[in-house]
């Protein structure tokens, strides 16, 4: 069943949440910043600084290219600021104290923008996350070579996952979102997200295990 938190809220439900406003008030950690930005759009900056790296990372892991990631990040934040008036906070007690429905909303925009990017460049497909293998490391001494190989292998394993599993993994591990938040971003139920991540980890484990086995027996 889709999670109702981020769906449309009826007037009746809104009235109910207004009555219990005192309870809901502490739930969305971005509430104060969002309200300030609504009053004065110039006050959007703290929200921007707070989520820049997260949105950029998401775009980078999805698109595999720094320039594309920058472009997607820029569009995401411009859209978020321009649409801020339409954002509705939908936190509920089950979301926990650190939850931010603003973050979910922002990532839904990011997901939309990234999808649009990918559609636009479909004619020139690139393997996502391949860039990770060639990111120059200034501390690339011999002792770190193996670690770098491991990182590249992990990135490659994630890159080989189907899109929905990859997205869920990136949101969970890179952006450190809760299952509820990921469900909100992906428009799925929490249970579906749990299963998605579980299966993704299984695939990654198999993939990394194969790579490790191949490395252990290179002569064979």
């Amino acid at each position, binding site marked *: 069943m889709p999670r109702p938190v981020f*769906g449309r809220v009826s007037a009746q439900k809104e009235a109910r949440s207004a009555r219990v406003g005192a309870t809901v008030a502490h739930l969305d950690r971005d509430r104060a910043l969002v309200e300030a930005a609504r009053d004065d759009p*110039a006050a959007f900056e703290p929200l921007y600084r707070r989520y820049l790296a997260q949105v950029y990372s998401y775009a980078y892991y999805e698109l595999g290219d720094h320039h594309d990631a920058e472009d997607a990040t820029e569009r995401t934040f*411009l859209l978020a*600021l321009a649409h801020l008036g*339409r954002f509705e906070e939908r936190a509920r007690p089950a979301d926990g104290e650190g939850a931010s429905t603003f973050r979910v909303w922002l990532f839904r925009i990011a997901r939309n923008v990234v*999808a*649009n990017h990918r559609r636009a460049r479909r004619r020139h497909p690139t393997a996502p996350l391949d860039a990770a293998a060639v990111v120059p490391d200034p501390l690339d001494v011999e002792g770190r070579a193996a670690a770098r190989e491991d990182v590249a292998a992990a990135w490659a394993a994630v890159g080989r996952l189907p899109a929905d599993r990859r997205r869920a993994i990136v949101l969970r591990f890179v952006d450190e979102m809760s*299952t509820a938040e990921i469900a909100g971003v992906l428009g*799925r139920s929490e249970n579906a997200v749990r299963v998605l*991540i579980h299966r993704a980890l299984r695939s990654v484990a198999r993939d990394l295990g194969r790579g490790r086995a191949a490395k252990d027996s290179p002569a064979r």
Partner: protein
Amino acid sequence: MTFPLRDRADADAILTDLYLDALLAAHDRRATDVPTSADLDPAIRFAAGRLSSDLARVHPSFRFEERLAARLAELAAHMRLAAAAGGSDARAPLDPSLDPHLDPAFGPDEDPAADPESLHNVRPLLLGGALTSAALSLAGAAYVAWRRSRPPLTPMARAVRAVAQSRPGGGARQGVRPRSLN
């Protein structure tokens, strides 16, 4: 206790989820001990451990960060101006299809049509208005000029023009302008 197949998969997924919560929390406080259930598949633990340490968050360049901050400040100023000018909805020119709230049923795999190009419509709202009014002014000026040079040929005007043209040197040069009779 045995679970039916589907329930078993759900139970495994919940165990994994709990483990990930603990793992990421431990990561935050730089702890190495992560409480885990004995029922959790070691392969899942291995993969989760690898991903939590290898999938790092990437930060954009400082230059990009500041450039985007400047663009946002510019947009904020535009929105403030639009609001001050009486516009109740400063973000109206943006494409509503990009608003996730308007499309709560984002498909899991298929993303809704989005047109981030519409971002460029923010400023054109003002520029478009200015251009339209400039174009109207030019068209108006051209029409007035045309009207002045080609007055309607009423019988009286035709007669006056004929008289003026019959005079040596032409009426216009002597200050007789048919349009004054209109």
